[in-house]
């Protein structure tokens, strides 16, 4: 069998910047922030009073009865998947045994878990919703999308904290490469803007506490960054075998040509300051794609705005790409979306696909003073044009636990 190639034929998203891909991408290119003060009463008991909630509430995009059986993360997954499936031309005639779904979440249905725990304590066991388990299980978003699309090649949920979304796309890529499926709906979602996860991240000193200026709190690579901003939402990509996509006349955005996966073996939450795991992941991803650093012109960085993480990543990028890092436009879109945890690698992959399509690297906002320790070429404030011709781009994602995932996309 000849080598199977994988292309992107559909995109979907619901994010702090918009209820779909077009509105989100437009806001990204305009350098807007999706971070706002929380309106919930519980914010007062936390050291952090802001987050990046989705711009469009699921209730505006979904029927009430459907919503009440779904965790918020599952609502995001269905909303973004419906957009992506439609964008891919709704290929419903496909043999469902050749259709897969791989959608990740970093935490799962934590809001459902906490709500039902409160109901148990207040009203007793009989009042706990019978929908609780399908709502809180981390594979719930993937399972609901798989059910709706009748996917029968396999429905999967890799979990690797903030690398989960990227790992899901990599898993989907492998499913098509290995001839398990012809189309896989892939991505990641997260719905954890709730007092418990926020208190927990705050306890790790991982969150920014810039309460007086939320829109400028997420500031990757800035000298005075003080932590990440929690975001919610998700991104979905329809991946498809190249010949299959051509045969049905599908719109093809770009190719996904490689992935690199490594683990640090260093610390449960802190990044390895040497970044050797990240460097190896980049090396493996390029090898897997049959490329070198010379082919790479854009990178959507993990860059969450934490003091340690951003510099460790930038150093690793510089070491892995060498002198070729000089022609790589690095964008940190979490400056606008906040950190979607298990949705991050997915929405950032959506941005990468749009960047290749429009030949525009999105901006990184909120850098007032570039940290002098950052030795990569960061796109600041406004989008930057990417070269015409054949180019490739990287998306890197890392998760607590020491997970490193690098994806390679290229123009066709």
């Amino acid at each position: 069998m000849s080598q199977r190639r994988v292309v992107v034929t559909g995109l979907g998203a619901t994010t702090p910047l918009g209820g779909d891909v077009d509105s989100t991408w437009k806001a990204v290119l305009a350098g807007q922030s999706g971070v706002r003060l929380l309106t919930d009463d519980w914010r007062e008991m936390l050291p952090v009073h802001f987050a990046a909630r989705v711009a469009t509430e699921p209730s505006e995009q979904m029927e009430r009865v459907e919503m009440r059986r779904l965790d918020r993360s599952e609502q995001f997954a269905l909303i973004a998947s419906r957009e992506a499936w439609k964008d891919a031309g709704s290929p419903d005639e496909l043999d469902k045994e050749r259709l897969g779904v791989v959608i990740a979440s970093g935490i799962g249905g934590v809001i459902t878990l906490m709500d039902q725990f409160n109901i148990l304590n207040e009203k007793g066991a009989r009042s706990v919703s019978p929908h609780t388990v399908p709502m809180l299980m981390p594979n719930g978003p993937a399972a609901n999308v798989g059910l709706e699309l009748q996917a029968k090649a396999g429905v999967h949920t890799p979990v690797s904290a903030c690398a989960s979304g990227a790992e899901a796309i990599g898993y989907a890529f492998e499913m098509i490469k290995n001839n398990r499926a012809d189309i896989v709906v892939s991505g990641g979602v997260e719905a954890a803007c709730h007092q418990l996860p926020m208190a927990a991240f705050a306890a790790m000193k991982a969150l920014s506490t810039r309460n007086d200026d939320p829109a400028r709190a997420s500031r990757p690579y800035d000298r005075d960054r003080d932590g990440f901003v929690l975001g919610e939402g998700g991104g979905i990509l329809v991946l498809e075998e190249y010949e299959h996509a051509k045969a049905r006349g599908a719109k093809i955005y770009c190719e996904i040509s490689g992935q690199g996966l490594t683990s640090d073996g260093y610390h449960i939450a802190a990044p390895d300051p040497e970044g050797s795991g990240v460097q190896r992941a980049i090396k493996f991803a390029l090898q897997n794609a049959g490329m070198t650093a010379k082919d790479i012109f854009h990178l959507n960085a993990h860059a969450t705005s934490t003091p340690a993480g951003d510099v460790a990543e930038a150093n690793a990028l510089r070491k892995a790409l060498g002198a070729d890092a000089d022609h790589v436009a690095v964008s940190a879109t979490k400056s606008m979306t906040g950190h979607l945890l298990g949705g991050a690698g997915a929405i950032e992959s959506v941005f990468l696909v749009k960047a290749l399509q429009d030949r525009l690297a999105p901006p990184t906002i909120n850098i007032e003073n570039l940290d002098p320790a950052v030795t990569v070429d960061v796109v600041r404030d406004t989008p930057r044009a990417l070269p015409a011709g054949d180019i490739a781009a990287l998306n890197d994602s890392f998760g607590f636990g020491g997970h490193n995932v690098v994806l390679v996309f290229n123009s066709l």
Partner: protein
Amino acid sequence: MALAQADVLAGLKEIVEEVAGIPAASIELDKNFTEDLEVDSLSMVEVVVACEERFGVKIPDEKVTELVTVGDAVNFIVNASN
């Protein structure tokens, strides 16, 4: 004092509409929960718990399988309220 059948039916219609999204107008005594109204087993648990709260009756788990139609449920609740 027993609840009136008409009151129980009206309340049950509201509950089924809330839980399963079935328009109250299409819920009648002879409708089968699973076949006519597409109330699945998980949603039926929600309907039962909501009925217990609303009508102040107990509906034991072993009785739930006997509530095949809306009329079965209404009659059970009316009798249990006696």
